[in-house]
């Protein structure tokens, strides 16, 4: 839910960006992020401001990675945002141009179930659980009022199934979202390191814009998940994505 504080930051940043003041807009949006404001529109504006700067002569290294992070965060918070999807695609195209269609060699070792849970819409789950709760109430009323144990039992069984199913899936979805910490590589290439922080030789780093899953952070190093075992990256080369709060 957008708070009045968020609205204020959104309006300030939006007006600066519309006036072409990209640097000031970025400063405002980063200030909002530093204050812990999580909002899909703020994230969208941040992605867009970095994308605009990346396409301007004032481009800084890492702008495209920051743009990918902003749009990805916006989509994580509001998956139906078509503009954020287009912005993300645009930033990724530019990155591919820059890196010559270089795809990351790191595969997120993620289960299908977790991804399905993360993508689920909460409304159907709430509806199912609510219907289950209603049937349980109805069963109780039948049992107490009409003393019809048979009907009450049937209603209770159906209601309990729906209630447990809906609430269980909703809880699993909340856990999947809360326990997943994604980040985007915002440097030209994030060097892969071992636990002591030494660069791994002969191992290509992660190109800008790569999405990684954070598993641990110790000091200046972040451990990332993937199919290549335990890998560490300098935390300063990553931007952590905010996610939906429950």
């Amino acid at each position: 839910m957008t708070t009045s504080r968020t609205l204020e930051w959104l309006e300030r940043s939006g007006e600066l960006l519309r006036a072409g003041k990209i640097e000031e807009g970025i400063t405002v949006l980063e200030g909002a992020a530093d204050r812990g404001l999580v909002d899909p529109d703020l994230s969208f504006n941040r992605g867009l401001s970095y994308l605009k700067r990346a396409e301007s002569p004032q481009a800084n290294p890492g702008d495209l990675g920051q743009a990918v992070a902003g749009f990805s965060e916006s989509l994580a918070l509001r998956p139906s945002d078509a503009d954020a999807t287009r912005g993300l695609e645009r930033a990724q195209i530019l990155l591919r141009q820059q890196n010559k269609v270089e795809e990351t060699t790191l595969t997120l070792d993620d289960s299908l179930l977790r991804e399905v849970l993360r993508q689920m819409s909460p409304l159907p789950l709430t509806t199912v659980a609510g219907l289950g709760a209603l049937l349980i109430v109805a069963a109780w009323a039948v049992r107490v009022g009409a003393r019809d144990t048979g009907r009450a039992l049937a209603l209770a069984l159906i209601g309990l199934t729906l209630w447990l199913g809906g609430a269980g899936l909703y809880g699993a979805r909340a856990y999947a979202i809360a326990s997943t910490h994604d980040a985007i590589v915002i440097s030209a290439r994030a060097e892969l390191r071992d636990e002591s922080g030494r660069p791994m030789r002969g191992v290509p780093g992660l190109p800008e814009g790569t999405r990684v899953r954070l598993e641990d952070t110790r000091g200046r190093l972040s451990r990332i998940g993937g199919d290549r075992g335990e890998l560490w990256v300098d935390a300063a080369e990553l931007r952590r994505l905010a996610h939906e709060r429950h």
Partner: protein
Amino acid sequence: MKAARALLLSLALSIGALVGSVRAAHAAEVETSITTDSVSVGQTFRVQLALPVSDGDPEPSAPKLPVRGPAEVRGPSIGTSRSITMNNFSFSSQTQVTASYSITATGPGKIVIGPGSFQVGSKRVQGDVYEIEVQDGPPQRQGRRSFGRDPFDDFFRGSPFDLLRDRGARFELPPAPEHLALEHAPDPIGFLVAHVSKKSVVVGETVNLTIYAYGSRGAFQEANPVEPSLGDFLSFREVQSSFEEQRYGATIDGHSYQIAKLRQIVLVPLRAGTLEIGPMHAILAGRGYPAKNNALGYPVESRPLRLEVKEAPKKGQPPGFFAGDVGQFRMQLELTPTKLSEGEYALLSVRLKGKGNLPTRVQLPEGAGWEWQKPVTRGEPGVENGELSGSRTIEVGLRVTQPGSLELGDVVLPYFDPVRGKYEVLRQRLPILDVEARPAPKAPIADPDDKSPSALPKGEPAPSELTLTPRIRPAASLDPIPIPALAWPVILGVPPLLLAISAFGLGLRRARDRLSRDRGQPPKPRKEATRSLKQLLALTGRDDSAEIPGALRRAIEAVLLCRFDTKGRGLTQGELHKELTARGCPEDEATWIGELRGRIEESAFGGEALSMEEAKTAARRLKELLDSKEIPR
């Protein structure tokens, strides 16, 4: 003895660093090099552990090499070598720590070597384990190979000091080429001589720097080298040490000298002026080389050199020439795709091949309708036979911003050819791009008050140029249907609450019943009558004809007990009528109850079964009787 051991260790380190290893393995980053697969008893071989580290990383220390089997181990000799490379105006440096051991097989069998390890910070980094077969019999002597020889084979056979002493006598060195045979020796024991291939060049033109070591006391190896300072140059190394290099013999001032090439570096001057190539320092380590200010051997250094570097000539300089693009080059282009839609990207790949300082940029045609992205370069030249050559690819994205047939023009690369002494211009035409127009989006209804997120403010580019606009208000229409804050507490709370209420009610009733039973109190008549009637009604609702007679009988007894304080059990129909009327029951009700009981008995003993209608009527009348206020209690 100490000096001899130091000399041995130093030589071992130096040789070990460059020896062509029979086996090498990368395991946990410690590289283990062993000079042989199998040895004979009494034969000595070398094992080197090497661990490269970058600047800022903890330096490896405390090397360990476990050796099991019939072997005698000497060492380690620890050394550090550092290399700094300047390439494309950026420095990179690497340090390699090596620990060298010499191992002598003392009997037949198998020697297990490793895992070699270094302490790095708080961690121990290990290499792999190797096995060496030791054959019984005398050591095999190997003839000298002109290429790929293993200096350890010679060096550590028997006593290394014997070898150093004998080496000069055993090998006949080929005579030095004329340019290496000096008229006078600057030092009677040893010295270094540095040459450059040209004395005067233009910025970007390659120059060969070669440094030779001369030693008059027999075989020597270089130790503790300090590279010449090359701050004003790009440097590309072809020879990085003397260990694999051909040795020559020459007589200078009546002394026999061994000559070895220490370095061969291709330099690319970065600026004009008189540029200095700093001296190189090294130690000549060998049996005959006295320790002078250094325990390892005889220190030597080359003289600094000066190189005159000029700007490329102004005369005939083509426009767009970039200082430093000097050499002989060829260019190939590839632009894909050539058919695309407005706003899409194509990729131009420019491949440059040739000799010299490969350019890092080309001139791209500018014009309306397209935008070039930042170029990215790939590939570096390499050194071969003293020449800098290779290929480099420059890739740059091209975004088309207007539809139609776009004639982009030429990609141009001007460069200076130092061999011909004149400028050349490579020019290649780019293919014509066929750009389709992007379908125009539906025009929004003009609304001056529109402040929706997608509304375009004045002065914004056309939608085809910029389709994303910053948001000043939340795009709430994109938000999913909100779930009320209380929804989940209610959903999750209600069923357990009902369960708790039911459990509480059930428990309370059971407790009360138990209490009543304990006190010997019968159930309250009114409640019992109500409950019986409800049961009867429930059975009639379910059309359960089997249970109905029993339930009806219980309901009659409960109602009679409640209203007239008699159950009427054991009484005939007439006695019951009399009893009920005596207790205030209306005449017609008493008659009906009697008949109803008779009907129930009849149905129970094979008569016509009670119909559902009869049961319902009976239940209704019994309820009326129970609730009647006219009948005294």
